[in-house]
């Protein structure tokens, strides 16, 4: 897989769960910014912004994204309608579109 640059987006419907969407900016294979949207539930809600900040600067490969996602899910946050792996799938799906 070559260097990725530019704006990528994807949607991912969790089976029996919610619809996740993301748009991200990739610069030399590194996420420079990301916006995650959808009809899921996260408590407290403002944590979504922490997640987006945590993901900025992360290498755009599955293991790096998964590691960061697992770190986030270990913080004091509850997500209903999607789990850490669903968010990893969502982000990695941007590469297949």
């Amino acid at each position, binding site marked *: 897989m070559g260097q990725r640059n530019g704006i990528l987006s994807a949607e991912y419907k969790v089976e029996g769960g919610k619809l996740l*969407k993301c748009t991200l900016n990739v610069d030399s294979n590194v996420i420079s910014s990301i916006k995650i949207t959808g009809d899921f539930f996260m408590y407290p809600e403002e944590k979504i912004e922490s997640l987006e900040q945590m993901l900025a600067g992360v290498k755009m490969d599955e293991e790096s994204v998964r590691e960061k996602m697992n770190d986030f899910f270990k913080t004091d946050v*509850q997500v*209903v309608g999607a789990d850490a792996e669903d968010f990893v799938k969502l982000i990695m799906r941007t590469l297949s579109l």
Partner: protein
Amino acid sequence: MEEWRLLLTGAKDAFTNMAIDEAVLRSVVKGESKNTVRFFQWVPSTVSIGYFQGIDQEVDFLVCKNKGVDVVRRITGGGAVFHDYNGEITYSVAVNESHPKIPKNIIDSYHVLCGGLINGFKLLGLNAEFKPINDIVVNSKKISGSAHTRRFGGVLQHGTILYDVNINLMFSLLKVSDEKIRDKMIKSVEERVTSIKKEKGNADKKNVVDAMIKGFESALNIKLVEGKLSREEIEIAEELKVNKYGTKEWNFKR
């Protein structure tokens, strides 16, 4: 029997409605107001979007403007809802998180609070069932959806009760980029969404609310006593409307 407050605030604009929900939650948590069940409507009709949704991804502003429909972001997650003045009643519950009836687990809490609506639908002669995560179905079709948040030490759950649904109007307001997908979606939504009128042939707004009041009373083993917003709640709501729910910063934040 434990007394909770019943609020019947009638039809108000989107920004006031969302501000009242938050003002009531703040007041309940501080112990200044009793735990509260509220029923209300929206005028003008409104699309509310979930906290995490991208407003541009969900809403067709041009159609909303043409139809005179407002758009507001909720404090709660979940999906976009069309609050049609001619076919929808919204409920909200504000209760202390430490209340013995409220489970710690969020999906369990949906089930408990949706129990009020399920009992209400049953009183209307409909065989309603809870469908996790946050829906109520009749004959496998959605008739109600709810959204839940926990903050300030309290629980706020609000949701929609469809008594007469205009699916074509609903889906003209919500954004679906591809027209073909739009057609397919309307068909599948018609198969997936229903209303009290569709199921029963008629629906009187007042009967629906009366049934839901009784439904909450029996589900939570409480007595609902009609009350009013306090002066403080009205003031906080006014402030939240001006500085939060009515602002571009809030509604366009995602």
